[in-house]
């Protein structure tokens, strides 16, 4: 892919993503205040965040991969259950992931 094409991809993708954001803030409120819409919007984050958790913790290059990330996730879940502060949750997850990497080589 040439440098020019690469720039075109970068700029077109950026413009498109920005317009998607702007559209969200610009649609009339009346569209939003319907029961079905508010219902969907209320639950979309749970579905997507869980999908992101699963994909980023347990997949790599289009396949399921079990490694230190899952251990980090389990430690993070434990920390969350114990109501640890956000930054602590991230730190223990990172340390756990790094430790598993070191131990398993």
């Amino acid at each position, binding site marked *: 892919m040439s*440098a020019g094409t*690469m720039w*075109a*991809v*970068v*700029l*077109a*993708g*950026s413009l498109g*993503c*920005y317009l*998607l*954001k*702007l*559209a*969200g*803030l*610009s*649609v009339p*409120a009346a*569209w*939003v205040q319907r029961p*079905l819409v508010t*219902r*969907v*919007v209320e*639950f*979309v*984050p*749970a*579905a*997507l*965040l*869980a*999908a*992101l*958790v*699963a*994909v*980023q913790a*347990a*997949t790599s*290059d289009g*396949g*399921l991969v079990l490694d*230190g*990330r899952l251990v*980090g*996730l389990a430690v*993070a879940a434990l920390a*969350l259950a114990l109501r640890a*502060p956000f*930054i602590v949750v*991230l730190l223990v*997850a*990172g*340390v756990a*992931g*790094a430790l598993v*990497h070191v131990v398993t080589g």
Partner: protein
Amino acid sequence: MLTRVHGVPRSARSATLRDAIGLGVAVGLYGVAFGAAAVGAGLDPWQAVTMSALMFTGASQFALVGVLGAGGGALAAIGSALLLGTRNTVYGVRLAPMLAPRGWLRRAGAAHWVIDETTAMAVAAPDRELGRLAFWVTGATIYLGWNVTTVVGALGAGALGETAQAALDSIVPAAFLALLWPRLRRGATEAGVQRRVALGGAVVALALTPVVPAGVQVVLAVVAVGLAGRPRARETAA
């Protein structure tokens, strides 16, 4: 609107600031990985940092360079970024009443920072004022951190040790879990339904991972919202 009444006003404000900055630092750190991934996929450092400055939505950025790195074409790369970007449209709809930006300039500015993290922080705040504070503080912290660390990652690509990479790889899913957690916790609004939807989303995403292009399974996981069922009259007033 939201009617969460628990929480103490003053400590709620400092808690909001602390969480927003903590999240910004954590997500900013991941910019190192993005910068490195972008250069690894064939972008030059200018293109990598242009993406962080102008696209500024991590999942779309990773998807775009992921598709390019896997040998995907220009349209597939842009398409995957846009598919993931549709999330932000939903977030914008959710945030519009809270942010209520006056004038096109302010709206155009606010729109740029409508992403996973700012939305989650704003929506999780106990009231509208704290929600706006959370949005702007989280947005500013992440924007700064994400762009600076993208440069660091792009220039240092390859220099990042494997152990540091493994730590980063574990931090990101943990961060998303931490964002998801309050929705599932006992006492949250319809926590049982949220758990069902979350489990459904994770299962759908994992099941689709081998068969759809990278990133698309996250968008398709939105079908799990169907598990929430139809709105009941009593709840629509909440």
